[in-house]
């Protein structure tokens, strides 16, 4: 007992240290892809409109005329100081884009995750317990279809449906124009839901909440399928465990066996894999934001890709990489707190 509690801080410390090489590998991959690839960002962005001299000037201003090794070290150093560079056209710091638009992505993904868990866990548990029954088959089909259906298609179906039932319900953007005007003053946390609530502006808060419904449902639908499949498989595997057989042998009813013995153990691996879904969630968020004109980081990325702004794309992709690494750290730490077997 004493040794296991002693190893937890050590595990966490090790895990935190592991972040440095992990971030380094990802940053190197991003740099190699976007910088070392032939062609340069300047002529890709504005090459058709400026003379060769002007292009050289822009390259020098962006530091792109220096040797690649210098640029690489410079890039690593900047990221270490949380400086992700500035966009090429407007010279806006990437960090300020993240600050202004990250809140929308955060609330979208968190809302979607909550919806996915609410749908996914009960369905997966039912399917696992009643394996191979028609109910199981139906739930599995749901799990597969939710993952097979293109996210943007699901989103538009929801929009069409809502338009038919309640034409005044918001299906676009994060807030209605009036709320946006009012809420420009609310920049305490840059998370609109929280800001409107903190300002005590109930009507704006409700408006923002309503705007969240469809995007969160769309992204949540995608994630719920993954969770259904995970929970189902884990319940099935837990039900094959010796301790479950032992519980059955003691005469405990099947419902209680599932609830008290199998389900809890089935949830432990689920936590790990749910953590891995952060990557899927971010991928889905990019599509959801594009579908609903959601003013998040994903829309920003799509916009800069359209503008061929290499530096902005590099900065945003780097930011996503950092987010993924840090969330996986948090998930691992939670996992270690829940499951003593993790701490080695």
């Amino acid at each position, binding site marked *: 007992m004493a040794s296991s509690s002693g190893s937890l801080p050590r595990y966490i410390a090790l895990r935190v240290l592991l972040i440095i090489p992990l971030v380094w590998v990802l940053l190197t991959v991003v740099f190699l892809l976007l910088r070392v690839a032939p062609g340069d960002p300047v002529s890709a962005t504005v090459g058709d409109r400026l003379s060769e001299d002007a292009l050289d000037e822009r390259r020098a201003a962006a530091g792109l005329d220096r040797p690649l090794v210098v640029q690489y070290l410079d890039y690593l150093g900047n990221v270490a100081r949380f400086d992700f560079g500035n966009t090429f056209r407007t010279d806006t710091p990437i960090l300020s884009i993240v600050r202004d638009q990250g809140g929308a992505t955060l609330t979208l993904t968190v809302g979607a995750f909550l919806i996915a868990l609410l749908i996914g866990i009960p369905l997966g548990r039912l399917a696992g317990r009643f394996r191979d029954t028609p109910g199981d088959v139906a739930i599995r089909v749901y799990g597969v279809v939710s993952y097979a259906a293109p996210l943007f298609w699901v989103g538009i179906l929801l929009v069409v449906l809502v338009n038919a039932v309640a034409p005044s319900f918001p299906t676009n953007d994060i807030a209605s124009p009036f709320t946006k005007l009012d809420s420009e003053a609310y920049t305490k946390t840059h998370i609109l839901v929280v800001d409107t609530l903190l300002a005590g502006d109930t009507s704006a808060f409700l408006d923002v909440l309503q705007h969240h419904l469809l995007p969160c449902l769309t992204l949540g639908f995608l994630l719920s399928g993954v969770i259904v499949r995970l929970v189902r498989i884990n319940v099935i595997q837990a039900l094959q465990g010796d301790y479950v057989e032992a519980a059955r042998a003691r005469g405990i009813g099947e419902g209680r066996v599932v609830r008290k013995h199998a389900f809890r153990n089935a949830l432990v691996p689920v936590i790990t894999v749910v953590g891995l879904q952060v990557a899927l969630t971010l991928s889905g968020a990019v599509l959801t934001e594009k579908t609903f004109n959601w003013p998040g980081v994903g829309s920003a990325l799509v916009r800069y*890709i359209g503008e061929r702004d290499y530096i902005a794309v590099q900065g945003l992709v780097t930011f996503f990489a950092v987010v993924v690494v840090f969330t996986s750290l948090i998930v691992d730490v939670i996992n270690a707190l829940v499951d003593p077997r993790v701490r080695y």
Partner: protein
Amino acid sequence: MRGLWRTIWDTKGVARWVLVGGVLVTLVFVAFALLAPWIAPYGFAQNNIDGTKLPKLAEPGSGYLFGTNDQFYDVFSRVVWGSRTALQVIALSVVFAGIIGVPLGLVSGFLGGWVDRLLVFVMDAVYSFPALLLAIVFSFLLNDKVGGGVIPAALSLTAIYIPQYFRVVRNTTVAAREATYVEAARAIGAGPFTIMRKYLFNNVVQSVPVVATLNAADALGTLAALGFLGLGIQPTEAAEWGYDISRGLDDAQSGVWWPAFFPAMAIILLITSLTFVGEGLNETVNPALRRRRHRPFRFPQRDSAQEVSS
């Protein structure tokens, strides 16, 4: 192969039917892809017959099975040609990823040591990165430099799936490395290359089909997402379902549902059946999930009265 067929047949319950159903639907799409010129009434970018334009947004059934879209294209023809594009891209990307991932995993798992640790670390880092973002970055670059055809699209999906083959093959290799038959091979003087090629390869590739089919399903979804973002296959190169859906979305909101609906259904059907093939294979091949049809012994079921009381 006969062994695999036997395992499939002996498997109990839904898994077998899921597998068979998935294979059948996939075969329909394969037939579409192979026979597209004969099945599709028009070309994928044909908007006229001998100079007369096709009607714009004609309803399904009115001489055009799935209707026509806003670019005067026949939707049914686009769906049929789209299955050719889709299967080409996913087959290429899965094969590319396998060609790179499987040998890497085999070597890494067999050699062990710092090579193994380094490769595992890099692969895990790539795997943890959002797949769509990786594909976006790749196709962003390839679109700029190579253009938006089938091969660039397949290449931009390849990087996503390499780590998955690597992981599976590496883990099975590590487990098999210490097996008696490898030790025996070493004892009769087989070199590392021979052991990997002759002894380990056949044993570790068994898990690859499951990964490959599941990746194929995922690749199709990612391809459609790239098409939706305007990054995948350019419309002049081939018919692509994701692009067709994104073009049809505005029309769909104003009640013209067919230009987006049919490609969407094609995507859903093909991904679903590929996933069924993968999951069915998994449940028949993976002994932890498999259930035999004839179980030697089962505990009798408890009666329901007791269950209520507990």
